[in-house]
């Protein structure tokens, strides 16, 4: 087991370095000057030249690449051009926000997707199955940012201003303006309320895909002999489905966990923009438009690392729950 883990972790290292290298060269070989962000009639060309020297931009590409790699491996991502603040601090502030959103969305997507998929599988080719299939495919075909706007329109703006529903959800930010003055209980409630719409917008599209996958996997398992045996033993249908079938049907679903991470982060860029959620996606997008290279490189690198770690976790979980996979 230890050897398996070690080998998998060692295998992930070149992948991480490769991603960092690609990000570096895409940004550094493309046209565009980061210092142009500061260009204005009040700034003389000499000052810009000095800035370039201070930022190390006068060095040839291979020197900059070496410097960046070595300092990054020591945990130093440099200083943001635009904010004049160490990138590590910025990311340490903002990464938890994205993780909260992603974990909530993942949880909703997997629970919802698996429940729908199982419901479809046990009612195969009946009305429930086809109705849920159509609904799932409908959500699967939906751009998440549009879904987010529609959810805001209905559950935030409409609920509050048009129909006067007793519950409406805030559509912007992570907390309300008066958050610091709330009691701890109210603070928690405020945070959860702010999380509802963004996490649902991210989760619904993902859940639709997971439901499709779970249905297929479940149908394959239900045809197996041991399920017939379980039924023949006189076990209740509930027990057969939940205990014997579902457990085995979930094994291939685990791989989706790793595969859906890049998709989730792509969605996070849009969803964080729509909901003004101060997360990594919005940070990287803002940094790209400002040509704040250290932030872009560090952010892209972090995304890559999280995806690879997620895949690693999925692989380990997989080998854990499926005894047919050997560790060596």
């Amino acid at each position, binding site marked *: 087991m230890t050897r398996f883990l070690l080998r998998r972790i060692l295998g992930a290292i070149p*992948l991480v370095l490769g991603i960092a290298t690609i990000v570096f060269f895409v*940004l550094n070989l*493309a046209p565009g000057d980061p210092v142009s962000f500061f260009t204005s009639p009040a700034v003389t060309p000499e000052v810009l030249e000095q800035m370039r020297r201070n930022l190390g931009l006068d060095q040839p590409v291979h020197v900059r690449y070496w410097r960046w790699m070595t300092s990054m491996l020591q945990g130093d991502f440099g200083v943001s051009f635009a904010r004049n603040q160490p990138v590590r601090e910025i990311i340490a502030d903002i990464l938890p926000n994205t993780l909260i959103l992603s974990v909530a969305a993942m949880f909703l997507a997997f629970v919802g997707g698996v429940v729908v998929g199982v419901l479809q599988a046990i009612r195969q080719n009946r009305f429930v199955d086809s109705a849920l299939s159509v609904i799932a495919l409908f959500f699967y*075909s939906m751009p998440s940012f549009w879904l987010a706007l529609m959810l805001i329109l209905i559950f935030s703006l409409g609920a509050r201003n048009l129909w006067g529903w007793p519950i409406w959800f805030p559509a912007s930010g992570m907390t309300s303006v008066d958050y610091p003055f709330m009691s701890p209980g109210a603070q928690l409630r405020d945070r959860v309320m702010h999380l509802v719409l963004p996490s649902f917008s991210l989760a619904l599209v993902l859940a639709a895909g997971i439901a499709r996958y779970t249905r297929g996997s479940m149908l394959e398992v239900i045809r197996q002999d041991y399920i017939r045996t379980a039924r023949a033993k006189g076990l209740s249908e509930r027990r057969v489905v939940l205990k014997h079938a579902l457990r085995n049907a979930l094994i291939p679903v685990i791989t989706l966990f790793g595969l859906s991470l890049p998709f989730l982060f792509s969605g996070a*860029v849009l969803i964080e923009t729509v909901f003004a959620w101060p997360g990594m996606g919005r940070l990287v997008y803002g940094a790209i438009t400002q040509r704040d290279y250290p932030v872009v490189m560090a952010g*892209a690198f972090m995304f890559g690392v999280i*995806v690879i770690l997620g895949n690693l976790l999925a692989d380990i979980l997989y080998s854990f729950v499926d005894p047919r996979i050997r560790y060596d």
Partner: protein
Amino acid sequence: MPPGVRPTDRPVLAVLVPGLPQLLRGRIASGGFALLLWIFFVVVVVVRWDRVSGAIAAGFDHQVALATLILGMALVWGWSLRDALRTEPEPRVGRSQWTLATRAFRKNRVAVLGLMAVTLFYLTALLTPFLAPFDPTQQGSLVAERMLPPSGEHLMGTDQFARDVLSRVLYGARVSLSIGFVAAGIAITIGTLLGAISGFVGGKVDDMIMRFVDMVISFPRLVLLITIIALFEPSIFLIITVLGLTQWPQSTRIVRGEVLSLREREFVQAGKALGYSAPRMILRHVIPNTLAPVIVAATLGIGDTIVLEAGLSFLGLGIQPPTPSWGTMVADGRADLLGGWWMSTFPGLAIVFVVLSFNLAGDGLRDALDPRLRSG
């Protein structure tokens, strides 16, 4: 009456109303669709006669639309007439894989519906200059016609600049549909070639290509896209190229898997024994046998690409104004979501329905092209 001629054939009816004889004979899908297309074309010609007749002088868009109209009518008419005049029963011999797949696909009603919807969307996009009630970039009176809710005159309302939303949605279809198609084309070309090389050559080349694929796949695609696009000037060519260049890894994996299983087959061994060169083996013998899953991946990939392009435009990095694009229109509606709900809702619905029909068609194709999933 000579043997073989079906008594229900009505060639005269087929000349007048294509699709109707087939429909009367109980072929709901093909007959109904042909009839629907025919009615669509005729209505366009009658209602928009002024635009159709003046199309040649009205510029490239109108000429393309006119060509589409003429070609479409000729195809529907020709198909119906040939079908109605056919005296031999359908040939029963020579069932290739493709014939079998076509039959399996036809049995899947939802998939057929999806394919018909895709056809209709492309026709609509091509015929837009005749269909759109207003000029998509023409601003109306900012006082009287700004942000009107949907009504008889403006079916989907008007936006902040008093432009007709329906016309903009129709023109936006051209951007989305052409981008999806071309980007998928680029992606499957690169993906198939690299996948075939990777699987066929093996060894170090295979390792290198697959490591690269792993890296590109484990990267959030939208982040990669905005990084590249932000560094250059956004233009439709850049967006198509970049979308295509970031989509190939999926098809590379699929093709490589197929090639690995093909490599040990007898026909490949025979080719090697005959001394065929590697490029000839790959291009002439290996790739044609991997086409089925690639077509499925491409169809499903078009849907993904349309959603991604809309996302880029939503962020302001896609198609630049004033060219209408669905993503940009959804973003425009954000400014006053409650007061102008129609501005975001309708372009978004257009995305959903187009992507949905591609996904339905793709699912059906997968079931039809995979012999293991084929039933009867």
